[in-house]
C-alpha cells in the first residue's frame, strides 16, 4: 500500500457459519475494521481502504467443522 500509491483496497470481513447471520454481519464488520486499523498502524493510507462485511455469506471453505470454520474467520484484501 505504501509503495503502490495508485491502488486502493477493499478489506472484506468474513465469519464462519455458526451463529445467526445479522450478528455475524456485524462481527464481520468489526473484523474488517480491525484489519484496516492494523494497516493504518503500519502506515497505509486509510483513504484508499474500504472495510466491508460479508458476514457468513461467502465461506472460503464449505466444510462444517473447525478446520473449515477457521478458514472462514478471515479478512480478505481485494485490490481495486
Amino acid at each position, binding site marked *: 500500500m505504501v509503495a503502490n500509491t495508485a491502488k486502493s483496497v477493499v478489506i472484506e470481513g468474513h465469519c464462519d457459519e455458526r451463529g445467526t447471520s*445479522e*450478528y455475524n454481519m456485524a462481527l464481520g464488520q468489526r473484523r474488517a475494521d480491525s484489519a484496516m486499523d492494523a494497516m493504518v498502524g503500519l502506515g497505509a493510507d486509510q483513504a484508499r481502504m474500504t472495510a*466491508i462485511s460479508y458476514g457468513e455469506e461467502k465461506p472460503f471453505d464449505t466444510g462444517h467443522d473447525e478446520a473449515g470454520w477457521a478458514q472462514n474467520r478471515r479478512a480478505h484484501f481485494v485490490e481495486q
Partner: protein
Amino acid sequence: MRSTRNTFVSLCLVLFGLLLMPLTLKAEEVGEYIAIRKTGASRIAIVLDKTAAKGDKESAWANSLNATIKGGLDFTGLFNLMSAPLNIRNSQDGTLNLASIASVGGDIYAGGSVTKKSGKPVLEMQVFDASGKSLLRRNYSGEESQLRAIGLRFCADLVELLTGKRSVFGTKIVFISNRTGNKEVYMCDFDGENVVQLTNSRSISLTPTVSSDGNYLAWMDYTSGRPNLYIKNLATGAKVSVNKHGVCISPAWRPGTNTLVTTLSYQGDQDLYLIRADGTVERRLTKGGGIDVSPSFSPDGSKMAFVSTRQGGPHVFIQDMNSGQVRRLTYSGTYNTQPSWSPNGDKILYSSMQKSGEINIFSIGADGSGLLQLTSGSRNNEYPSWSPDGSMIVFSSTRDGKRKLYVMNADGTNQKPLLRMEGEQQQPSWSVNK
C-alpha cells in the same frame, strides 16, 4: 357431549343488529354477529360441508373453493376439521339437519353453495353452532380469477367470528431465497402460495422487512459493490438508499410510522440509527459498547428490543424510545439474538445458540417472565417472525437438511413447512398486505 363442549367453547353473544347493505357491496351480511371465544386450549371442532353447486362451471368453482377453505382453515391450527355426516341433510326436503352436527361431536357447521351471476361466482356461506343457531350468513363474490381470495375472505370472517381476533388470511411473508443462484427478496401469501420475486440484484440480498402499513420494503444488498440499505415504495416502485459506509443490516420499521431502525457503523461502532423513509438519518439511538443489531419494536413503537454485546456475549435488551433507558431481557443462555416482539405486546421471541451448537427459538415475556422453548432437537431454528394477528410464527430451520421456511402456532405447536421452493430460504418477515 354438549356440556363437555361447553367447557371448551363459551358463547358470547354480541348483537350488532341488522345492517342494510346496498346490493352492490361484494360481501353482504345477513342476520346477527355472534362471537365465540375459546376458553380451552383445544381446537374448534368444525363440520365443513362441501359447497353445493349446479352445473359444470359451478362444480369446478366449488371444488376449488372447497380446497381453499379447507386448506385455509387447516393452516391456522385452530380447527379440528370434520366432514359432514351422511345425515347432514334431511332426506325429504334437503334442508340442513343441524342435530347431526352435535351427534358427530361438532361445535360448528359451515357450508354453502356457489352460483353463477353475470358469469361470475357468488359464494353463499352459512355458519351454525351445534344448537342450530345461525352465526353467519354472507355472500362473497368476485371475478372467476379471484376464487382463492373469495374463499379466504370467508375463512377470515369465520376466524374473526369464532375467536374475536383478526386472522392470518390476506397477510404476506417476505423472505430471502437463493433459488436463482443469488440471494434475492421474495414475497408469498401467508400460506406460502403465490411466490413473487421482488429483487433482481444478482448479488446478496438480506433482511427484508415491510413497514407496518404495507407501503415500504427495506432490505440490504451488495449491488453497489458494498453493503447498502434500500427502501422501496411498493406502490410507486421508487427506491432510495441509505448510503453510509460500513455495515447496514437488519432494518425494523417502527409501527405506525414511516421510520425504521437499522444497524450502521459509519461512526465506528455497530450502532442502531433511526432512518426516515427517504433514507436520511433522523438520529442515533445507541452508542458504543460493541455490537447493537436486530431491532424489533413493541406494537405501540414506544420500546425497542435489540441484540447487544455491551455486557459480553450477544443478549437481548430493551430500550425505551423516549427516555433512552435500557434494560437487559435475557439472562438464560450465552448467545441470544433475533428478537421479535409480539403484535399483542406481551411476548418476545428470540433465537438462542445452545451449548450443542444447535440454535432454537424461545419465547419470553416482555417483562422477562415465562421463558418457553418452542423448538428443540431439529438442528438450527432461526429468525422467528410473528404473523400480524399474533397467532402464528414463521421461522427458518435446517431440520430437513437445507434451510427452509416453517410455521408454527404461537405456543410452538403445529410446526410445518411453509412452502415448496428450490434452493434455500431464510430471514422470513411476516407483514400485512397492502
